[in-house]
């Protein structure tokens, strides 16, 4: 009961309410703009959070996460371009329905199902994060190593790119984390005599480079692209008939999204694809899918927003990011001196339940903003790229520079921008790099400490039941894409 009261704390703090208001608004704008999104937006806003207290900072980031994930649906429905990757499945039915003159109905369903999915996942977060944190008390270094390996092997099935390419990108991310002084022995690694590299490569330059700068280069190849934008009169709340058709789909997708979100490294993109395909599988009218099915929109949108709360579960309870955006939130926590994990639940419940409450309110806020302001947000897509991207460049450069006041960080950002562009061009997702980078230190640190405990005997890992379970799950995660592709071939 006390914890539930703590959840309401943001409602009674004008500062937190203001942060939530702006976070949700900013998240919606980011979500609407194709190419940007909560991950890039979160990374860009991180330096500003230094002026805030830890709770306000994380509330700002999580509200951007929730609203940004929903915002992608507006662009998906109106211009057939997902504002965020998680909204890709929404395009499949959202745009055809909008073409039939029912853009308001499509967006109404997207808004309602996103809100329900989001709130459902916060409930999951409130109940499961403390349980997982409690379990984590049993974890020693070998278990954390096995868990991190499990998180990394999950990259094989993140949906974008081929499994092996994702694993290469993940290994590359870990490799980046080894640059600088070895944290155990202080020996320089991959510094090439550059003093600035002894502290390692920062997270922000890599994230902003891989997401924002590589997207700027991608946009430079699309300057002649013309979007067919469908005019929106007003959002309509779903009718009784629509509710009857979709309530089961919304609940199912909320469950799927929350579960997928909890899995390390998986996020809204995978959740929405699975939510969509399950909606089709259970539908009485599967032939309508792809032609403007209201169930398709509900399935995809409930799932991707449900993944937000789910992804926060491993992030807060174990310090393992559930998605790319939660990797940014994890960085925010670390920057503000908050160490996620079981101790956080015991020592700072007010902080945690404040975040849970803020996520709940953010879901309600984006419903209100989306319902009354979708028409205005849709107009943001009219800002031409030739004006928008140079502005994003200016903010990216200053934001990256501001964390360490280092020009080298800006150059690193540009380098990763170019690298990210070519990675995406040749089918390598950039998300695994981020996850690998954030998990790198954990993987290496726990491996080396475990080997000290085991006196160098690698086989001892398999004598620990929890570690062994994670290794088996890792093998399943690696085999899953193979089984899936064989199944698809059979079909």
């Amino acid at each position, binding site marked *: 009961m006390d914890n539930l009261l703590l959840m309401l704390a943001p409602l009674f703090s004008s500062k937190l309410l203001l942060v939530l208001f702006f976070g949700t608004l900013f998240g919606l704008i980011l979500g609407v703009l194709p190419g940007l999104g909560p991950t890039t937006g979160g990374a860009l806003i991180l330096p500003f959070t*230094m002026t805030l207290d830890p709770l306000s900072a994380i509330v700002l980031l999580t509200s951007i996460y929730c609203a940004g994930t929903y915002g992608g649906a507006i662009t998906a429905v109106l211009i057939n371009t997902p504002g965020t990757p998680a909204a890709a499945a929404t395009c499949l039915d959202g745009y055809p329905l909008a073409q039939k003159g029912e853009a308001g109905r499509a967006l109404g369903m997207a808004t309602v199902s996103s809100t329900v999915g989001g709130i459902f996942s916060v409930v999951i977060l409130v109940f499961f994060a403390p349980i997982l944190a409690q379990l984590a008390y049993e974890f020693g270094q070998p278990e954390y190593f096995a868990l991190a390996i499990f998180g990394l092997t999950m990259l094989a099935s993140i949906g974008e790119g081929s499994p092996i*390419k994702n694993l*290469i990108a993940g290994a590359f991310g870990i490799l980046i984390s080894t640059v600088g002084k070895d944290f155990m022995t202080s*020996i320089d*690694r991959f510094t090439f005599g550059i003093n600035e590299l002894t502290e390692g490569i920062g997270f922000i330059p890599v994230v902003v480079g891989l997401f924002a700068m590589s997207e700027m280069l991608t946009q430079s190849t699309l300057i002649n692209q013309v979007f067919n934008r469908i005019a929106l009169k007003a959002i309509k709340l779903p009718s009784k008939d629509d509710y009857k058709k979709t309530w089961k789909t919304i609940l199912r997708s909320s469950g799927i999204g929350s579960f997928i979100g909890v899995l390390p490294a998986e996020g809204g993109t995978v959740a929405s694809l699975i939510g969509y395909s399950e909606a089709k599988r259970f539908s009485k009218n599967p032939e309508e899918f792809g032609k403007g099915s209201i169930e398709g929109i509900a399935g995809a949108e409930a799932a991707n927003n449900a993944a937000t709360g789910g992804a926060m579960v491993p992030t807060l309870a174990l310090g393992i990011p559930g998605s790319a955006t939660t990797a940014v939130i994890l960085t925010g926590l670390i920057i503000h001196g908050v160490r996620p994990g079981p101790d956080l639940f015991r020592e700072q419940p007010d902080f945690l339940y404040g975040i849970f409450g803020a996520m709940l309110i953010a879901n309600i806020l984006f419903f209100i903003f989306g319902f009354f302001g979708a028409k205005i947000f849709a107009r943001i897509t009219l800002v031409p*790229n030739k*004006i928008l991207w140079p*502005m994003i460049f200016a903010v990216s450069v200053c934001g990256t520079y501001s964390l360490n006041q280092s020009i080298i960080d800006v150059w690193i950002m540009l380098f990763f921008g170019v690298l990210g562009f070519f990675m995406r061009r*040749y089918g390598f997702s950039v998300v695994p790099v981020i996850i690998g980078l954030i998990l790198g230190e954990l993987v290496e640190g726990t491996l080396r400490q475990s080997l000290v405990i085991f006196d160098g005997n690698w086989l001892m890992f398999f004598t620990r039941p929890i570690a062994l379970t994670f290794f088996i799950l890792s093998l399943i995660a690696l085999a899953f894409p193979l089984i899936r592709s064989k199944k698809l071939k059979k079909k």
Partner: protein
Amino acid sequence: MKNVQKQKRANKSLPFFFRDEFRVSLVIILISVALLITTFTFDIVPPILNRGIQPATFPKALLVLIIVMTLLIYYLATKNPWKVEKKLPRSFFLTLSSFVIFVVVSKTLDFFLAISALSIFVSYCWGEKRLFYLLLVGIIFPIIVFIFFETILGLRFPPGIITNIYYS
């Protein structure tokens, strides 16, 4: 779908050294091998200070893993070629070159000037010819961003021609 198959067939008809899968794999392997060689130059920790494994062991293992997986994607690509990517347009190379100009200008002249020059250059190359909008993205907006970062975060930008005038 038909387009992708067409692009894949087009890729298969190219000599192997012109195919994307070969070139990408080669670049990854060459870089990985170079980094792998570098790991042999890392200092070795005496056994008494060593924590589990040598500092070079972990990166070495990662690089070997990357090389093996790259060989695997190349092997798979020989059976199922990647689709041929469209040629990159001029605007891409102009934007890319603006990054280089940014690095040079920010290093030699001024950080603000570099942002301003890149913004105007990119905006112009992407088709913006109206003077007001070029000034908006190249001067007005960067000034707002600079002042915002300076006042909110107390940030001090690196010295340069324009920044020095501002600070003095």
